[in-house]
């Protein structure tokens, strides 16, 4: 899991925040913070629905509620690694999707957060097959989007 492997996963997100690394990391594991931002736009995550047991093997659960119609989207994951304030890994056992968050101290109270999300089907979890599955799927999707849609999405 080194930097060379980046770019071969399905999804990569990077964002720089104007906040010290310790604080950004706390935001990702503290329900009092998570409730403010965990749901995307139009979706709330009530504080009482968030369960965080931030240690390897501990639970990470939350219920996201659609503001418009009240529909609920529960999420349930298990932490694989909690290495404060550098690295956070959890897996959704239902989907086999793993999310790896790394926190880089850029100095000057700025922090870069990298999210890598991998969804690896059962048949492709062997070490050899993995690379093939993951290669550039993210960029491929963007490319196909332009081919099949012909418009901005």
């Amino acid at each position, binding site marked *: 899991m080194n930097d060379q492997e980046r770019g071969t996963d*399905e*999804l990569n*997100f990077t*964002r720089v*925040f*104007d*906040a*010290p690394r*310790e*604080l*950004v990391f*706390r*935001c990702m594991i*503290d329900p*009092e*913070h998570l409730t*403010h*931002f*965990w*749901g*995307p*736009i139009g*979706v709330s995550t009530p504080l009482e629905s968030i369960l965080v047991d931030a240690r390897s093997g501990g639970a990470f659960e939350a219920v*996201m509620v*659609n503001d418009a119609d009240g*529909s609920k*989207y*529960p*999420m349930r994951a298990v932490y694989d690694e909690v290495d404060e304030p550098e690295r956070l890994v959890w897996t*959704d056992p*239902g*989907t086999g*999707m793993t999310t790896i968050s790394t926190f880089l101290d850029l100095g000057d*109270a700025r922090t870069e*957060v990298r*999210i890598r*999300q991998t*969804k690896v*089907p*059962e*048949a*492709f979890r062997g070490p050899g*097959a993995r690379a*093939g*599955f*993951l*290669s550039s*799927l*993210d960029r*491929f*999707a963007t*490319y*196909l*989007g332009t*081919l*099949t849609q012909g418009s901005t*999405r």
Partner: protein
Amino acid sequence: MVVGITAVDDKLDATFTALADPTRRAIVARLAKGDATVNELAAPFAMTLPGISKHLKMLERCGLISRSRHAQFRPCHLEREVLDEAVEWIEESRRIWTERFDRLDAHLRDIQRPSSSRKRGTTHE
């Protein structure tokens, strides 16, 4: 819909598996431009027709492509809806993280605001 990120089903698994191979991705990209026969699809690859046929069968099994049973040359056709599901799943995840980070950014600004009683850069919960 947020639900897309948690409700990844077997069909989507099969689609991603089919798209795991560069040759199959190239075939799909070619078919996105229009239907093509096996011979036309094989042309850009240093691959035998049976080799290409194996890939086509896999794409057919997961529903990404279909082949006419009647036309003489049985042209391959891309089933865009199946492909769109896979593309949408990826874009959905990307959108969720983008929006989540937009909100985290706003939240961090909020709790670090100099006017609050906390000092900038030393805030801890």
